[in-house]
């Protein structure tokens, strides 16, 4: 499959299904590629996949989830191919495993929602940042469990996606207040805890998420409010940023922006929140403390 088609397929998946996250879409794309692949060796297949990955990174979506998801998928594939000799059989195994993998990924959100909704008690006031599908589903589930709670959402400039989150919540009947990004410090003393999603989870146990998350986390730490992160496990990546500048540029800016402008004058899309500000991570592997993330990654990659 050529580059253009890859990108088209990828974008099509994202546009069609509202609920699909970028990472899952990327993995599905890779599976398609394997299906239509005409290569004869494993190495060729891998090379094709790597090409496709770089194509997807060049489309205008955030790269963190694509990176981690695809790396996991690749590992998945390479681990599978060690046994058999016949390439077709190998391919078949890969396809089976791929479908299994995707099925697991689809289930992962449900598991997270079940864990996280237990932490929302009656009368809670929750603060969230930007729009995260997992958080939205968790709030929906808690609402269905007949819990009464209130949500504060940040507008989250520059794309103001918080307004959409607010609309979605109000459509469910959950009382929701839209606040300015700069009003986080003001509202912090009134909320009970914070729940955010992530684009990616890094090796230190910290997270990479829409810009403004770090501010919220620092503020929460100072006022002693719990900071909960909801994330699927395929978003774990082997990155270890030391500070905000240490984040790779492909994470912070989309591909178009990277090509065109002087990066010093552009606002980044994401920021890095260190693990010391995070209380708990809710994943499909269970509830983890930030130090457990590294444990999981080590088990996988070493």
């Amino acid at each position: 499959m050529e580059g253009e088609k890859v990108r088209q397929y990828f974008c099509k998946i994202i546009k069609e299904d509202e609920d699909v996250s970028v990472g899952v879409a990327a993995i599905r794309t890779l599976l398609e590629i394997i299906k239509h692949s005409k290569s004869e060796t494993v190495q060729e297949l891998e090379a094709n996949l790597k090409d496709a990955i770089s194509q997807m990174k060049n489309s205008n979506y955030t790269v963190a989830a694509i990176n981690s998801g695809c790396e996991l998928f690749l590992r998945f594939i390479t681990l599978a191919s060690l046994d058999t000799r016949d390439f077709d059989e190998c391919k078949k195994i890969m396809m089976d495993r791929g479908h299994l993998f995707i099925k697991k990924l689809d289930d992962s959100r449900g598991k997270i929602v079940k864990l996280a909704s237990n932490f929302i008690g009656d009368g809670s006031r929750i603060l969230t940042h930007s729009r995260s599908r997992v958080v939205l589903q968790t709030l929906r589930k808690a609402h269905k469990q007949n819990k009464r709670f209130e949500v504060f959402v940040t507008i989250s400039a520059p794309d103001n996606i918080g307004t959409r989150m607010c609309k979605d919540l109000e459509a469910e009947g959950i009382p929701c207040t839209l606040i300015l990004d700069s009003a986080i410090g003001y509202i912090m003393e009134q909320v009970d805890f914070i729940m955010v999603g992530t684009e990616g989870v890094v090796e230190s146990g910290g997270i990479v998420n829409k810009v403004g998350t770090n501010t919220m986390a620092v503020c929460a730490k100072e006022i002693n409010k719990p900071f909960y992160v909801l994330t699927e496990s395929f978003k774990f990546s082997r990155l270890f940023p030391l500070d905000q500048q240490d984040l790779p540029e492909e994470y912070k800016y989309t591909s178009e922006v990277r090509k065109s402008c002087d990066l010093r004058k552009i606002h980044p899309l994401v920021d890095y929140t260190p693990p010391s500000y995070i209380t708990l991570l809710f994943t499909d592997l269970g509830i983890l403390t930030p130090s457990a993330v590294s444990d999981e990654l080590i088990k996988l990659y070493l």
Partner: protein
Amino acid sequence: MHDKENLSDVSKLVSDIKHKNILSSLDIALRSEDLLKELISQGQWKSARELMNLVKIRIQYIKENLPHEATAANVMRHVLKVIREEYECESKRKVEGQSLHQLVTAHPADVLDYSESLINLKTSLIDHLTEYKVELESSGENIAAQASEHIHMDEIILTVGKSDTVEKFLKSAAKVRAFKVVVVEAAPLYYGHKMAVSLAKSNIQTTVISDAAVFAMMSRVNKVIIGTHTVLANGGLRAASGIHAVALAAKHYSVPVMVLSHMYKFTPLYVGSHNQEAFNICASPANVIPYSAGKILNSIQVFNPVFDYVPPELVTLLISHQGGNAPSYVYRLLSELYHQDDYDI
């Protein structure tokens, strides 16, 4: 269902705990272990799965009746893990727990059913349980044996209330070192008094202070050594009331807080409510203000909470019979003690 009558063993355990016939957590652990041993040797079960179901029913019973009694449930959870291990050992198949690695390498046929009926399962389980009992009984001494590593000459140690584990720990250190102990009396039950008398009888220089003097005293204290009721899954503690204040004062003066805890106190539960209602229980207010106070008791509310939540950032070290650990490592200890699927029974 014949299960209902079989629950008489658990209901006796629960009623003993409620009526304070068994007081120390070690006794509770040993009783639970005995209960399970009987269940395994005499219960009606054919496969590992049936046995596990029986145990799960008991855990649920305890959870409903004594939501804060973690020790019994934890021992049973551990036994569930033992059952799974023995089963896997016997059937020579290995199932990995949930992890990224498992996500990646899983085979669809890998799900273990536990429903095969294996011959040697019963005997191997009982052997394992006997070992576990020995471990339970000796954990106190194992913890106390580490005492000389942590307590040094002329240090001032602060402890709160009465804990058998801490007592043994301090007495063991006192045999080799000379140090002083400050005991906080822990109103309203004043267990600290008993602890102080016991320590002084072992020739340890002891001072008793009231709960209000903790912050004032902390500037001179070198270490805080306390016991706890439960260790939660995030590394936090459910400890006796008043210990949160001690931990905060220790943090303020940068004094290390060491918590001595047996493995059966590690529970896989998290504290979700931030307003203490689900977390805490309240005891009789007569210990706070006696009934002799008269008519004003009609117009006031009196609280006597039993527990306190101590967040993991305030705990420096968790000492168990295997050695010391940071509170951030608790998730790993939990995964060794219990199986992932048994976390939220």
